[in-house]
């Protein structure tokens, strides 16, 4: 397939309830499943669709994201022959805070330049909070078959699958032979037990329609977002076609949903649903040695990345690169991120250790499934308490 998609990734996502995991990283950079970051999933969908470029709109420090993406070559998004990853500070948001307000107009200009310069036929708008395995080619075929003005993506879920005070919305669909959208409604007020069509904030539309909406958004000083564009389409009495996604989905909104998404992967069916595709999920290659499991290691239903050394017991847990777990330690129902070190006789249960946490001999931490304990990056955990190191 030739390059048909110009992807725009809105990575200014809701980080508040994910703290301290998002203290220094956007949602897109959250580590996931031993060796990935959330951005790898939309990027791998783009890779499968053979997109050659992407525009990223970010807020705050993009350092962790740049460091992960580099040239984008992992996902076929490098700069040769018309491709490239173009990153933009999400300056519109900054201007709302009355900072650098003179940049306001570049917000629209950056979108305009990216889309007009791309050789692709379509724009696809997406984010990284909706962890899923989207086949963009299927969405594209649907869009072309339906001869859509715009196509949005949803999944039917139970109310419980989103957090109580979720900021996300549901699509109100017309009943009839075609799935078209009547409107958007907030999910937070809905009763437990309700089935709803969660709006995955992903949209496919032609370049022409995109540029038309961009102009309209600029005129009214509105955000360039899926929800704005749904509204524009409805206002014009055009139909918003809705593509139903039926694969694995977890909306990463707070610490618990992040924790659950990692734990989901310990279930073979979920693991296959997210990782089984035409090509593997791609992440930046890192040099590594195999993981060594010592003679006394006991492992039950756990995932590891390369480069670990494991001498203790690990159950129902997700272990990232370069983690060492010494003898006598027991790790259960936990997520241990890269570069963490767990000394002897440590007990961890329902715990998330961020990167580079050192747990001293004999320490014990126990959270609950609903409230896993999160230890911030670079902390040291003593049997007596926790120190956060600069």
């Amino acid at each position, binding site marked *: 397939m030739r390059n048909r998609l110009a992807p725009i990734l809105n990575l200014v996502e809701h980080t508040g309830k994910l703290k301290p995991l998002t203290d220094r990283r956007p949602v897109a950079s959250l580590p996931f*499943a*031993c*060796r990935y970051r959330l951005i790898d999933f939309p990027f791998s969908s783009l890779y499968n669709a053979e997109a050659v470029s992407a525009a990223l709109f970010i807020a705050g420090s993009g350092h962790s994201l740049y460091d992960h993406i580099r040239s984008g070559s992992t996902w076929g998004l490098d700069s040769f022959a018309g491709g490239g990853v173009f990153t933009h500070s999400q300056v519109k948001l900054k201007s709302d805070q009355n900072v650098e307000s003179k940049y306001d107009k570049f917000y629209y200009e950056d979108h305009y330049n990216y889309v007009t310069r791309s050789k692709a036929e379509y724009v696809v708008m997406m984010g990284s909070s909706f962890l899923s395995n989207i086949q963009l080619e299927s969405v594209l075929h649907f869009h072309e078959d339906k001869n859509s003005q715009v196509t949005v993506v949803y999944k039917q879920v139970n109310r419980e699958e989103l957090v109580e005070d979720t900021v996300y919305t549901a699509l109100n669909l017309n009943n009839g032979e075609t799935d078209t959208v009547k409107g958007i409604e907030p999910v937070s007020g809905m009763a437990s037990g309700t089935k709803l069509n969660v709006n995955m904030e992903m949209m496919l539309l032609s370049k022409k329609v995109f540029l038309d909406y961009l102009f309209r958004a600029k005129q009214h000083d509105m955000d360039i977002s899926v929800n704005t564009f749904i509204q524009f389409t409805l206002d014009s009495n055009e139909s918003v076609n809705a593509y139903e996604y039926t694969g694995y989905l977890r909306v990463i909104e707070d610490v618990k949903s992040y924790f659950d998404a990692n734990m989901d992967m310990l279930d*073979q069916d979920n*693991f296959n649903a997210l*990782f089984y595709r035409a*090509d*593997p*999920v*791609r*992440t930046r*290659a*890192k*040099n*590594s*040695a*195999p*993981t*060594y*499991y*010592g*003679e*006394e*290691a006991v*492992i*039950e*239903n*756990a*995932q*590891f*990345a*390369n*480069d670990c*050394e494991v001498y203790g017991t690990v159950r129902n847990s*997700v272990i990232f690169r370069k983690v060492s777990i010494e003898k006598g330690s027991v790790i259960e129902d936990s997520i241990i991120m890269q570069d963490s070190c767990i000394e002897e006789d440590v007990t961890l249960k329902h715990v998330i250790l961020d990167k580079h946490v050192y747990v001293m001999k004999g320490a014990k931490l126990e959270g609950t499934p609903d409230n896993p304990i999160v230890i911030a990056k670079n902390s040291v955990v003593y049997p007596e308490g926790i120190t956060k190191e600069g």
Partner: protein
Amino acid sequence: MKTETVAMILAGGQGSRLGKLTKTIAKPAVPFGGNYRIIDFALSNCANSGFNHVGVVTQYQPLVLNTHVGNGSSWGLNRHNGGATILQPYSSVDGEKFFKGTAHAIYQNIDYIDQKNPDYVVILSGDHIYKMDYEKMLDYHKRKAASLTVGVMPVPWEETSRFGVMNTDRTDRIIEFQEKPENAKSNLASMGIYIFDWPRLKQYLVDNQSKNRQMEDFGHHVIPAYLRNSESIYAYSFEGYWKDVGTIESLWSANMEFLDPEHELNIRDRKWRVYSKNPNTTPQFLTETAKVSDSMITDGCYIAGEINHSVLSHNVKVGKGSVVTDSVIMPNVVIGENVRIEKAIIGEGAHIYDDAELIGTESDIAVAGYKEEVGGYSDEK
């Protein structure tokens, strides 16, 4: 930026003593230690020694090797004008040219080396497992003002008859070379690592070619010619771990040694990394029924069985009830349920069906070949 040194890795040999494992791939491309291929050690040594102009001379079944080495980017070699370059046979106005020996392979690639115009050429072998700082050897070569420096290591006296042996004077100058001697005068064996002054070596190769004198092999022709002409040849002693994995048994035992977390090669040393091309694959998934003990396991593995004292490369699947002991499992191997594997090497992409057994001994390691199928409906078992 002057190119001081070009490294030439001789990766052309078939390695026929590795039998089924090298039927369709070159020996330097054979997987090793879970995450690596044999040539990774020489390539990583080059990168860590600061030599980033590397010619990889190959002619036997090069497809896997070429895909693996690429432009050398996995080893960080493709920086600062450097990179790995695969050098294969080619034709010219003088006719078609296969490589007839180690020195002849260099002769055929004079154009490549001259393009870089180096002072020194380092000749390396692509099929040894070791960590060595070639820059230190180069410093020694310069200090000795040598025309040729040969990397040597002491071997037990009773094994000298298996090696090319260098007899040196008290200044470490080589005064005699014995190829596989009955009665060795020294126990310093050549490691097949040479540093040559390039202009001088080129002169030897070109002059002798034009006179139709044989100059095909470094050991048989070039070193004797250098000695005859009283060139200054020095021996550089290396004392670390070094292993030629030329046979099934040595490949197996090198893997078993590598497995030891206290092993001298120290694969986790961040100051001297061994790099490789890393596949895009999933995390290691050890299910509720998995048991792993004293083993190395690599990303992409799915383990529902029992693994004891073994090395598993990436994307290996081991079904429930299967037991793998004292074995080396190469990438993309599928092992069904209730399989028993002991003292074995399972080649890349092999498929071992349910209930099969593959049991070797230390002196007769069991082998499944590249993409071989064992058990199930296959007759090959």
